[in-house]
């Protein structure tokens, strides 16, 4: 079985935000919710880099651990998914998530945040694969169709890599060796408790 991961090669990312847009369109994500975003570090200074970030589908996922209603589950591919039917919108997963991935349709006030929404690695939720119910709650299920997440698939510079962790780590490693530098696999240490050894 594959262990799905994301890796953003910040030396390639040009902050075009196409991944963000593609995700919103693919899953018809409501206004105000960003399953993926691009963060620019050292903006305007030498060494500036941009990193496209969404849910990293962590190992021993903090969100899943702290959820008071245990609504998360990890698929055989290592993808961290959750059930909106069980979620009570308490917001704890946002506090626990190192990457700010969980999103809420309403902004707080009286704890009425609504059901949490986050990147599904384009693989839906607990409903039957490719059902309407699944699409309405979680967006499309590309994994069930044998496709990888759209954000990475359509990334014009191939900065954003999605796929089996070992394979994308190997691709990244080759790149770094070839070009002679690399700013590292952002977030891997926190998400997977490992980095890509070059």
């Amino acid at each position, binding site marked *: 079985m594959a262990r799905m991961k994301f890796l953003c090669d910040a030396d390639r990312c040009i902050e075009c935000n196409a991944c963000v847009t593609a995700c919103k369109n693919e899953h018809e994500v409501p206004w105000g919710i960003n399953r993926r975003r691009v963060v620019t*570090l050292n903006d305007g200074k030498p060494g500036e880099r941009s990193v496209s970030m969404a849910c990293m589908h962590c190992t021993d996922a903090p969100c899943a651990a702290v959820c008071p209603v245990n609504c998360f589950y990890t698929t055989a591919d290592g993808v961290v998914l959750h059930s909106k039917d069980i979620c009570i919108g308490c917001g704890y997963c946002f506090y*626990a998530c190192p990457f*700010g991935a969980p999103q809420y349709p309403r902004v*707080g006030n009286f704890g009425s945040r609504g059901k949490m929404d986050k990147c599904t690695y384009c693989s839906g939720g607990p409903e039957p694969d490719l059902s309407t119910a699944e699409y309405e709650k979680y967006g499309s299920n590309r994994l069930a169709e044998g496709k990888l997440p759209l954000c990475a698939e359509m990334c014009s510079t191939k900065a954003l890599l999605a796929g089996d962790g070992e394979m994308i780590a190997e691709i990244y490693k080759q790149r770094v060796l070839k070009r002679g530098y690399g700013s590292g696999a952002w977030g891997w240490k926190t998400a997977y408790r490992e980095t890509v050894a070059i």
Partner: protein
Amino acid sequence: MQRVATLLGALLVMAALWPASGLDMSARAQSPIQADGQNPMGARPTADSVNEEFLFKQSPKITGRISIPDGKAANLIQPQGRQYQMFREGWLPWIGALVILGMLAALAAFFLYRGRILTDHSQESGKKILRFNAFERFTHWMTAVCFIILSLSGLNYIFGKRLLMPLIGPDAFGALAQWAKYSHVYLAWPFMLGVIFMVVVWVRDNIPNRIDWEWIKAGGGFIGSKHPHAGRFNAGQKGVFWMVAGFGAAMGATGLMMLFPFAVFDVNGMQVMQVIHSLIGVVFIAGILAHIYIGTLGMKGAYDAMGSGKVDLAWARTHHDLWVEQEQARTASGPQVASHPAPAE
């Protein structure tokens, strides 16, 4: 006139900038970026990029610039989430269980050792004295009912998925947790109001004084049979009062921060609020368990004070002798009988 001044100003600024920009351009023309990607400043624009290690040395979380309105999204990595996970899943359930079960065990042991505290019969037995008026009782019970539901729904956040969910299944538990959450966030308001009322009506009688010290030294009458003097509230009750006032304020403050998330704090601040709320929450629950014990099972006659509001005069004389004297002196007509109106407090 003003326009002329503006124009002059603009011209001046342009004049000042002109040579500078010219210089800049000539400098660039003279030393173009070298073929190996090395520029004259010594920085390699491609290879010398920021990296995680470097940024984590500068600050505990990595934050950048974002082009969407949600400011929280500018945080790229906050490893503190892992620590929060550690606290909430590794420590909190154990701390909570230890504190609450520990208190229950201590109360059970005390009950076995001391039994129910009774009042000796005297010729004043059977007569009644008003201890808490209607407003005081209303305040107490409004706060108490809210507290019990807040406690149960609060504990559900920690223990529900461990104890209840395996029993009733995820769907039923999800529905229950949703209602528990609503009850927690809505009953928080009357609870906070109740705490404020309590402080207003009772703070006067709860200022610590020398009598309290004597009461504590005498073991509060719990140990041994001698009854130390006490005013309207003894040192133990004053302790409960100040615990409710202090913890109530802390729960309210941290709870409000969670009700309006990110209004004041960033994500790390929210984690701290949650940690404080849950830790004080479990200690508060344990403290109130002791209060409930002594007000009901632990001492005969105590419950009436908050039930009907009137207590047996013999009980009052035993436990709050100074208060009884004060009340009797004030009303001059002796103990209050049932039909009398509440004294103007």
